[in-house]
Structure formats: structure tokens, C-alpha cells
């Protein structure tokens, strides 16, 4: 209370002379030298004086001062705003009233050029005025500027402007920002702790950044732990702190001699080699590390080389010193509060991150599902193994590329809408041709189907390479699919992935409808369960096989367009998905569309889960995932959704 009174008295005392001076020009003339050639050290006095004067034109002046639009007339030292006119002379405006007061030639006046440091000072002073500006856009800009800078002196004006803020949203923003500044720079520990506690459990990135700033630590080393320091944690060399790093700290604090690199030791020994002997140690024995240590120690004793510690010595030095992390903030109550607030946040952050991971996994799963669902029909339902399935995906993607890039359709949205059915048509035709020409002769020899379709796969891949070249081709998505959906700071997913997810759901529904609710689906199921019996019931198995295979291949084509939107189109893109697709079908359970969905979900989730443990290494994630699948098949050889009874086929 007494302190507040004193501050108030000080303010009044400072304001008195300013009140007496009257106009803005008068205030400036009082500090003429500082205004004319301001430096960072002196500009503060001018700014204080201006602040205290409470004159209406101060904000405008500060803005123009900062923008180098203030001029001084050499003859009388008065300040003006000036605008260049067509004839090269300048129109002068009075600094207090902004009224035109005549013109001046360029030689009569000179521009005031504050340097970068000064302009920053002016800007922060300006913020106070801008916070109360009638224009909401400028007030918002001022709040943003404070949030970026986070200077201690911004706290008071910001807190003062909260009350009078008419805009509710902006007021909340100001209030929050003021709490942040209070947490960092509040006058009393109680105020700071209250502000810190108000952020407990908040997941927003800026709030956590403030808290993390409060609990920032620096690493220290000394002979013993200090009594008075606000210590975050003690570090044990070899444990929380690496031994090398710990020793480097001792060296930096001059508590231990610097480490001599092995190369320098060798150079020193070589330099002191005379008559086959180094400091009394015969050179032949120097292949032994102990002999080297002895020779070097002898040289150091003689003062010829800088002394060093042996490994034992280093261990001893580390053991006899203390290492700790110390909070930059000296008050333990405050850092404790911040740590508490952060740990309250932790759970929420973890939950948000899990949600983000789940979204990622879901999107990966839908991509695997799209890639595998065609295979679920040809391999899962028909039992035909088609190694060229990946190449059908690639054909679909290139169909999309051709539609988009070869200049027929300028609009990307229309191009995609044309590409999807066209890709289906192209790969449907390719699938039917392959079934008629190759696969139908091999229905009784599954292993040979595998090899024949592999032959087709390498031929198709090489042909695509010959036609389109080896470099990756982009498939541009329409602009409304760009960007991403961000429900919170920690969760985001791009719209293209959402679209792929939606497409996967549509496919699931369409396929289930075809297989379960249409005549074709009935015939497909009949032929796959028992071709002989189906044929005797009047179904043509050849036609059904052809159509089923065409359907599976056509879906691969559409998947190709979708995958092309998300990844690059290359001639080898299909081979990257083929093993994963087979795994998806096998893990999910052969002969069942739901199984494929389950398989894709499991594999996508698993891969993202493993990546989460080791985000830098997606190769490792894939490796472990495949190993897991191999083991999984041991326990559920028929997959997650196993067919039962006669439909199982065995």
C-alpha cells in the first residue's frame, strides 16, 4: 500500500511540469536534443515525458516519429510533420494541431531518423496508446504485438486497458494476455502464483510456453550443492547427465583441467621422442595404454606438456563435484506452482496427442483399406492371388494424372470427378482382360497364378516407366481439399485425408451392398463357394469370375486416384502397397469385407503406434509391424474375422 502510494506520488510529481507546458510542441522542445538525434539510452526520457503529458496527438506523433515522417526546421528547431510536394518543396503541418503551416524547401528542414533500437522503444511505447485506440483492428494489432514481445513494461498499460475494452472477444484476449504477463512479471509472488494457477490444465500452446518459460532451468556444476539456489533436480554423471557433458562443465567452470584429445597426447609423445625413448618409457611399449599414461604423466611432471587427468582422475573429479539443474526463477513457490500447473496440463496434452495419433492412424488405415479392398475381392473372395494389383492402383493414379495434366480439363474438381469413373473403367477393362487371358487358365494352380501375375506386374511397371518416365508425377488436389482441420492446437488432420477416409467408407458401403443385396453379389458368393453347384443352378461361373475380378481391379483404380492425391504418382507406387495389402487381407480374414476393414484398422493403428515410440524411423515401424503380423498369424491363422462353417471352404 505504501509502495503504491509512493508510485502514485512519483507519477504526479513527474506529470506536473508536463501539465504546465501545454502543447505537444512544447513538450518536444523541452527534450529537443533527445528527439532530434535519439539513442536507445536517452529516448526513454522523451517517451516518459510524452506519456505523462496525456496530450491527444502523442500516439500520432509516436507513429510518425517511428516512420521517419517527423522533420525539424533548422532555423528555429521546431518540429513539423512534412509531406513532399510536386515541386520538391515540403508542406509543413503543425505538430500539435496537424494544421498546414506553410511550406519549406528541402534544404531548410531535415528528417529525423531514429535507428532500429530506438524505433523498437517507440513501438513499445506506442502500444500503450494503441491499446486504447478507438479502432478495434488497431487494438487487436497492439495485443498481437504484446503477445509477440512479452516485455515486463507492457503489463501495466495492458492491465489498465482491460477494463475499458468494449469488444468482449478482445477483452477476453487482453485479460488472458495480462494474466500471462502477470505470471511472468507480476509485482508480488502471490499475484504471479494466482496467474500461474489460472493456467493449470490449459492445453493451448502459448499458455504452456509461458509455464515452460517459468520453469526454464540452467545447468550448473560446483564442488557442492548451494544452499540458497532454487534447484530443480540434482544430476548424477552417467545418469541424468552424460559423463562427457559433466566433465565439459567442470572444465568450463575451471574446476578441472581440460581433456587432452587422444590425438594431442600422441602428438606430444611423438614430439618428445628421442633415441627410442619417451620420458624414460621405451617406444616399443607405447602400444599399451598404461605405458602411454605413464609417459605422458612423466612429460607433464617435467612441465613439457599440459597436465591432464587419466580416466580414473576424471571419474574422481566427477564424483567429488555436484551437478544440478537450477531454475532461472529464484522463487521456489513460483516454480512449484508452475510445475503443478504443467503437470495438470500434462494429462490433457497426452489425451489430445492420443486423439491426434488416433486420427493419423485412422487416416492411414483408410488408405490401407482403399488399397486392399480390391484385393479383398479378388484374393479374399475369389481366392485368386494377383500380384499386379499394385499396378492397377498405379494405372488408376496415372489415369488421374493424364486427365488432369494433359490439358483436357482445366478445373481440378471436374478433373477428379472425371478421373474417378475413368480410372474405374480403365482398370476394370484391364482386370477383365487379365482374367480372360491369363488367370482363368490357372484357377487350379494358385502358385502359378502368383508368378504369372507377377510377370504382368513387372511388364506393366516397366511400360509405365517407359511412357511416363521415372520421375514422380504430381496429382494436384482441388483447392477445397487443401488445408487441414484443426479442432485444437494439438490436433490437426488434412482435408485430403478426411476425404480419403470418407471415400473408404463409401467403398465399404457400396461393396457390402453389391455382395449382400444384389443378384450379382449372390452369384459371386455362390460361384466362390462352389463353382460346380453354382453352374448347375444356371449361373455362368466364367462370366461371374470375369465380372468379380473386374470389380476388384476397378476399385484398385479408384484407390489409385485417391492415393495419388495424397502421395506422388510413380511407376513403382503400386509395389509399395502390395505386401501391405496382402497383409491387410490375410490379417483381417480372407473372404470377408469386414475382415479387411478390421485388418486395415489394426495395421494402420499398429504402424502409427510404433512410429509414436520412435518417430524418426518409419522403416523400423514397418519392420516391427511385419514381424508382429507374422506372429499374429501364428495365433489367428484365419485372421481377425474368420469365416465359419461351409463358407470357410475347408
Amino acid at each position, binding site marked *: 500500500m505504501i509502495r503504491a502510494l509512493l508510485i502514485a506520488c512519483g507519477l504526479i510529481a513527474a506529470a506536473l511540469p508536463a501539465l504546465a507546458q501545454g502543447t505537444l510542441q512544447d513538450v518536444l522542445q523541452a527534450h529537443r536534443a533527445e528527439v532530434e538525434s535519439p539513442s536507445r539510452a536517452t529516448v526513454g526520457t522523451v517517451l516518459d515525458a510524452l506519456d505523462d503529458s496525456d496530450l491527444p496527438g502523442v500516439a500520432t506523433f509516436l507513429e510518425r516519429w517511428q516512420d521517419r515522417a517527423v522533420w525539424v526546421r533548422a532555423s528555429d528547431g521546431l518540429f513539423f510533420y512534412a509531406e513532399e510536394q510536386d515541386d520538391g518543396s515540403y508542406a509543413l503541418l503543425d505538430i500539435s494541431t496537424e494544421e498546414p503551416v506553410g511550406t519549406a524547401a528541402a534544404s531548410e528542414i531535415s528528417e529525423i531518423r531514429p535507428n532500429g533500437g530506438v524505433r523498437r522503444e517507440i513501438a513499445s511505447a506506442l502500444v500503450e496508446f494503441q491499446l486504447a485506440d478507438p479502432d478495434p483492428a488497431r487494438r487487436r494489432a497492439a495485443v498481437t504485438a504484446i503477445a509477440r514481445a512479452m516485455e515486463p513494461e507492457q503489463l501495466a498499460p495492458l492491465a489498465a486497458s482491460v477494463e475499458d475494452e468494449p469488444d468482449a472477444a478482445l477483452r477476453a484476449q487482453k485479460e488472458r494476455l495480462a494474466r500471462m504477463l502477470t505470471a511472468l512479471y507480476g509485482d508480488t509472488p502471490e499475484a504471479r502464483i494466482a496467474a500461474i494457477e489460472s493456467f493449470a490444465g490449459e492445453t493451448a500452446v502459448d499458455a504452456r510456453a509461458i509455464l515452460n518459460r517459468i520453469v526454464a532451468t540452467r545447468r550448473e556444476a560446483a564442488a557442492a550443492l548451494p544452499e540458497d539456489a532454487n534447484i530443480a533436480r540434482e544430476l548424477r554423471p552417467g545418469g541424468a547427465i552424460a559423463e562427457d557433458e559433466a566433465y565439459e562443465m567442470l572444465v568450463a567452470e575451471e574446476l578441472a583441467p581440460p581433456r587432452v584429445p*587422444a590425438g594431442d597426447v*600422441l602428438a606430444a*609423445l*611423438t614430439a618428445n*621422442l628421442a633415441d627410442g625413448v*619417451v620420458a624414460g618409457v621405451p*617406444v*616399443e611399449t*607405447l*602400444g*599399451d*595404454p598404461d605405458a*602411454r599414461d605413464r609417459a605422458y604423466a612423466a612429460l607433464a611432471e617435467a612441465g613439457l606438456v599440459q597436465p591432464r587427468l587419466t580416466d580414473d582422475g576424471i571419474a574422481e573429479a566427477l564424483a567429488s563435484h555436484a551437478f544440478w539443474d537450477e531454475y532461472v526463477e529464484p522463487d521456489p513457490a513460483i516454480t512449484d506452482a508452475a510445475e503443478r500447473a504443467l503437470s495438470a496440463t500434462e494429462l490433457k496434452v497426452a489425451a489430445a496427442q492420443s486423439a491426434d495419433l488416433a486420427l493419423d492412424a485412422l487416416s492411414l488405415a483408410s488408405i490401407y483399406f482403399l488399397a486392399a479392398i480390391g484385393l479383398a475381392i479378388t484374393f479374399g473372395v475369389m481366392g485368386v*492371388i494377383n500380384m499386379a494389383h499394385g499396378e492397377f492402383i498405379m494405372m488408376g493414379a496415372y489415369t488421374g494424372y493424364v486427365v488432369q495434366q494433359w490439358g483436357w480439363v482445366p478445373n481440378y474438381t471436374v478433373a477428379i470427378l472425371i478421373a474417378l469413373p475413368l480410372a474405374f473403367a480403365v482398370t476394370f477393362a484391364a482386370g477383365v482382360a487379365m482374367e480372360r487371358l*491369363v488367370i482363368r*487358365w*490357372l484357377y*487350379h*494352380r*494358385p*502358385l*502359378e497364378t*502368383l*508368378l*504369372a501375375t*507377377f*510377370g*504382368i*506386374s*513387372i*511388364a*506393366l*511397371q*516397366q*511400360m509405365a*516407366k*517407359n511412357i511416363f518416365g521415372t520421375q514422380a508425377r504430381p496429382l494436384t488436389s482441388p483447392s477445397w481439399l487443401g488445408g487441414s482441420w484443426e479442432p485444437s492446437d494439438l490436433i490437426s488432420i488434412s482435408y485430403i485425408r478426411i476425404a480419403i477416409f470418407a471415400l473408404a467408407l463409401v467403398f465399404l458401403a457400396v461393396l457390402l451392398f453389391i455382395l449382400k443385396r444384389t443378384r450379382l453379389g449372390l452369384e459371386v458368393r455362390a460361384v466362390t463357394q462352389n463353382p460346380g453347384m453354382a453352374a448347375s443352378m444356371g449361373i455362368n461361373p466364367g462370366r461371374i469370375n470375369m465380372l468379380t475380378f473386374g470389380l476388384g481391379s476397378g476399385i484398385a483404380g479408384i484407390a489409385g486416384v485417391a492415393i495419388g492425391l495424397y502421395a506422388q504418382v510413380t511407376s513403382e507406387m503400386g*509395389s509399395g502397397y502390395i*505386401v501391405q495389402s*496382402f*497383409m491387410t487381407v*490375410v490379417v483381417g480374414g480372407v473372404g470377408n469385407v469386414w475382415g479387411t476393414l478390421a485388418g486395415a484398422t489394426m495395421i494402420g493403428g499398429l504402424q502409427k503406434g510404433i512410429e509414436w515410440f520412435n518417430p524418426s*524411423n518409419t*522403416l*523400423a515401424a*514397418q*519392420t516391427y509391424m*511385419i*514381424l508382429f*503380423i*507374422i*506372429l499374429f*498369424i*501364428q495365433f489367428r*491363422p484365419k485372421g481377425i474375422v474368420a469365416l465359419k462353417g461351409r463358407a470357410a471352404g475347408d
Partner: protein
Amino acid sequence: MRQGFLAKNPSVLWFLLLLALFTLAVTLMAQAGLVSTSLVKTLGKTLCLCLVAVAMDVVWGYCGILSLGHMAFFGLGGYAIGMWLMYARTEAIVAENLAARPIPPTPQEISDAIGSQIFGVVGSSDFPPVWAFAHSLPLQLMAALLVPGLLALVFGWLAFRSRVTGVYLSILTQAMTLALSLYLFQNESGLRGNNGLSGLQNIPGYGHVPQSTISLVFLWASALALGAGYILFAWVVSGRMGSVIRAIRDNEARVRFLGYPVEGFKLFVFTLTAVVAGLAGVLYYPQAGIINPAEVAPIASIYLAVWVAIGGRGRLYGAVIGAAFVSLLSSWFTGGSAPPIDLGVYVIQWTDWWLVLLGLSFVAVTLFAPKGIGGLFDLITARRPVEEERVGDYGPDQGAWRRREGQEEA
């Protein structure tokens, strides 16, 4: 009537004779300067590929397991020998460099120098644990055979005991191969990531011997291994064990009901062929000079199956013919020495179109000539019909070979 081994397998003698003649001819021509060192190396490498193809034929053509992992075993053998070659050679170079200094090096210095030479490309200089035996040739040779063998044993045991068969097994082996190659692609695997191991053509301790001599030595070693492997596998697939193995291919369930331990036989064949594939890799990579994870990728194993299918599976010499024919043709076409064909509107460059031709001819072989090139031999040496010994029918399954085989072969 009991017959001797050679009488039952007339192809063994013929094969050994031709192999010996071929090796001798190449040696003489190389000494006379008619055949370049690089061609000798290509032929030596081809012999190794023939060996792994014979192993593949046994596991696929005789036992019916379409393994898409045998080139991975081959690559593991190559990695094992490559580790010793690289370590020993780097050690020699480092020792020479360090010996030039006035002060003798400490063991730590030598190890660090070798480490930074070998692992400099992946930004490390520490020896990963997998290099623990790299200093010793016998240990690495053992690893070259044991690692593929153990991997095949564990994988095969897991797969066979849960009755994974047919195309599922193929996909599973392919997944295993993919996992292995992805693992090797990582720098963390300790095998230099996608750089692989290089400089393997320099045999430590034999730096003074010219490559022309070394290539001939490896040609002989490869020929010897191929001959021995051929005899071994001819023995495995003949006699009672051979009958059981082929019966497993044709109807696994029936063999199981007859009381044979199907899993044991399959595991034996799978593991034995994996070990032989590792041995082939040991001989192949010092001739190739470099090994990287791409050599282990699933596609290599599929090509192996392609060779065997084109050569004719179910007969050992078929696999040899297929591997030799396709791999030599492939290097001829992709090497750019095949003349381009001018169609008027488009010139077919074989480097671009060879794979298309291979793929399509592969489809054609599967469809029209399931016996492969080896089937041509049936035209000159009609297989003896054995119908008089047979009682009963051959069963209803059209996919099996037992009818054709039963009618043609003892």
C-alpha cells in the same frame, strides 16, 4: 529292384561332366586371354545363382513351398562374409597407416580407426554388436550358414506348425523378406544402411594376387559348390525321403494321415535350402564386390522363382538352366549390348523393354510351357513309363502333378 544312386539319377553324372568341362574350358580360355576377367566373374556369379536356384527348386518344385525368401538367405550369407572381408581389409590398411607413425598404436586406436573407416558413411565410428565376430573368418563363415539356417528354422517352425500353406505361406515369406530388407536399410541396423558393404572383391591377405587369378579361383569354388550342392539335393529328392517330399507337395493332408511328420520334412527342406542359399551368397558377393539391402528386397526372391519356373521346376537341371539362361540373358539385354529394333515409328531400346519382354514371356511360359525349358529334354529322353507298377487312380485334384509325374517317371 534296388538301383544305385547314380542309376536312379542319370542327370547327376551328365551334369557334373558338363560342369567340369565348362569350368575347364573357361579356365583355359581365360588363361589364353580369350575371356575377360569380368566375364569370368559373371560366369562365376552365375554358377552361384544356379546353386541357389537348385535350392529353390527343391523347396518349391519338389516340396511345393513357394518361398519368396531364399534370396534373403542368400543375401544374409553375403552380408556375413562381407563383414569379414570389409573388416579384415580395412584392418590391413589401417595397420599399414598406423605403422608409419613413430609410436605404436594402442588396440583402442586401431579399433577406432577401423570403425571410422567403415562406419564413416553412416556418421558413426563405433562397432555395433553384430560385428562382434567380424575379425574372424571361421566365425563369420559359420555365421553365414547358421544365421540363414536359424532364421529359416524359426520362421519355418512358426509357419508350418500353424499350418500356413500355399499362397499364404508365399506372402508370409515375402513379408519376412520385406521386413529384413527394411531393417537392413536403416543405418541403426549397424550394417551401413543403404550403402551396404563394398570393396568385397579385394581379398584380405591376397592383395598381390591379380583379380584375373582370384576370379578363376572363385569360379572353381563356385563350380565345386554347385556340383556338391547338386549331388546333395539329388540325394535329398531321390529315395524314400524324396517320395515323401513330393507327396507333401501333392497332398499334404494325405501324407499326414499316412503318419509322416509333414512339418519335420518341410522344416528340414526349408532349412537345408536356406543354408545352401547362404553358402551361395558367400561365394557370390566376393565376386560381385558390393552388397546392399536392395539385393535382399522381395523382388530378388521373386526373380529366383521366375528363373526356376522358366528353367522347369521339379527337375534340378531345369533350375540350373533357368538361372543361367535368364540371368545371362538379362545382363546381356540390360547391359545395352542387345541391338535395338527399329519399328519405323518407334525404336525398341532393350534396356527399356527387356523387363516387359521378361514379364510377358514369363506369363507365356506359365500358360503354355509349365515344364519350362527343361521340358525340352523330355523330347530326346522320353521318361520311362511305370504304369505297370501302379495300382489305383491318381486322385481328383487337377492342380497336382502326380498323374503326369507318375506316368513319366520312376
